[in-house]
C-alpha cells in the first residue's frame, strides 16, 4: 500500500464540496479533491498521464490501429 497524504482543507471549502457533491459528480469530498488535484497537476505537466510502459503500449496500439507508423 503506497503512502497516502492527509491534507487539511478549510471548513468552508469542505462544506461547499459536501453540499454540492451531487452536482459535482463525486461521491465523497476526498474523491472530488483527488480528481481535481490529479487533473490540475496533469494539466500543468507536473504529474505524468502515462508511465513509460503505458506510453509505449499506447504508441504500439496507435501503430496497430494505423494512426502512426
Amino acid at each position, binding site marked *: 500500500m503506497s503512502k497516502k497524504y492527509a491534507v487539511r482543507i478549510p471548513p468552508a471549502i469542505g462544506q461547499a464540496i459536501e453540499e454540492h457533491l*451531487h452536482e459535482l459528480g463525486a461521491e465523497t469530498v476526498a474523491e472530488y479533491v483527488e480528481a481535481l488535484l490529479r487533473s490540475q497537476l496533469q494539466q500543468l505537466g507536473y504529474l505524468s*498521464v502515462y508511465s513509460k510502459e503505458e*506510453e509505449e503500449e499506447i*504508441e504500439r496500439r*496507435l501503430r496497430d*490501429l*494505423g494512426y502512426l*507508423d
Partner: protein
Amino acid sequence: MKRLALIGLDCVDPVLLRQLLPMLPTLRRLAEGGSFTRLRSVDPPITIPAWMCMMTGKDPGQLGVYGFRNRIDHSYESLGIASSAAFRAEAVWDTLGRDGFRSILLGIPGTFPPRPIRGLMIAGFLAPSTDATYTYPKSLSGDVRKWVGDYMFDVRGFRTHDKAWLVEQIHEMTRKRFTVARRLIESKKWDFFAMVEIGPDRIHHGLWAHHDVDHPKHDPRSPFVGSLLEYYRLLDREVATLMELFPSSTEVWIVSDHGVQPMLGGIGINEWLVREGYLSLRGRPVAGTRLPDLIREGQVDWSKTLAWGAGGYYGRLFLNVEGREPQGVIAPRDVDSVRTEIAEGLERIPDEMGHAIGTRVLYPEELYSTAGGIPPDLLVYFGDLTWRSIGTVGWETIHFHENDTGPDDANHAPYGVFLSSSVGNPGDRQLLGIHDSVLAHFGIGEGL
C-alpha cells in the same frame, strides 16, 4: 429545457449511410422524420483531434493538436501523445456545467485522463487499461465493472487477418459500450448525454474491401461480404435501445467525425525524401525500419537533411530549419522556396504505372487562423487520402499495396454525417459548428 443526446459513430460516412439506411429502421426513421446532412470534418479528418474540435469548436491549429502524437518541442525526438491534458480549450460540457447543466460523457476520444465535470465521464480509447483512473468520478468504474465486466475501450490486436475474431471483438465492444450507456441514462441525472462508439471506424478499416465491390482487393466469395451491414444492423438496434430510454422530448443527434473511402495503397514519404536527397541516412536500413528508431540511434545525418516525414492516414512533413531545429540546415530565408519545392514534388508522385493520384499538400497557415503548438510544416493527403503515408524506410519502392502496420482497407474522407430528430437546414453542416449548436440548444450563445 429539453435534453440533448449526441450519439457519435466514428467514421460513419454519408454515402455509405444512405446506401444502408433502407436496412436500418431506427436511423432511417430519424433521417426521415428529422434531418440528415453531411458534416464537414476538420483538416486533418482524423479521430484525434476531430472529436475534440467538435466539442470545443476550435480547429486543430487553435488547439495545437494535429494528430494522436505531436511534437512537444523542436528537437527531433520529442513527441507526446495527445491526452486530455493537450486540449486546453474549454469544452462544451465545461460551459454547460457552469450554467448548471449536467453531462454524461462516454468514450469521447481525447478525454483521457478524465477531468472533473458537472456530471460523469468515462474516458475514450487512449486510456491504457481499466486499471487506470478512466472515469470521473473514480468510483464510477466500479459500476461499469458490475454492468459489463471488463469494459472495452477498443479492439486489441486490431491488425489481423483473422476477420472472424475481429468482427466478434467489435460486436462485443459495441454491445458493452451501449450497455454502459443504457445504465448511465437510466440511473444518472443528465441534461447533455454524449457518447462515441469507435466500432464503425474499426470495422471500416478491417473489412472495407470485403464490403466495397469496387475495392481492388474485393473478393465476392469472401465470407465477410455482409459483415459491415451486419455490424450496422447491430448499431441500429443499439441506438434504438437508447432512444427507448430517452424522454420523448429529447433531441437526438447522430454525428460522425469523418467519413470513409477505399485505401488504394501507400506512399513511402521518407523513402521518397531519401531518394530525392532531402533526407540523409547513415547507411541503408533494413526494409520496414521506423524513422524514429533511426533518429534515436543517430542514423540520420541532420547536416544533410532538409526534411523528414511521418506516416499515418495522412502524411506530416517537417523541415530542418536553421535556428529552429537543433541541427537545422535550411536558412530561414529559404524556407518558403524549399517547402514549395518539396510540396510540388510530393504532389507529382504518380502511382507505379505513372498515373497521377491527385495528392494534395496543405499549408498549416492557410488551413488555420492560428497554428498553435508545433504544427507540421506540410500536411500531405496522398491521393487525396485514398493512399496512406508510409513512414518506414529501407524499401525498394515508394509504392505499397500492403500496409506497413498490417492489413487495412480504408482511409478517412472529409465528410461525416449529422442526423437530427428535428427538422433542420438541409445544407451541409460544419463539425466546428456543433459546439455552438449544443450551447444554443441549451439557450447559451447564438448557435449555427
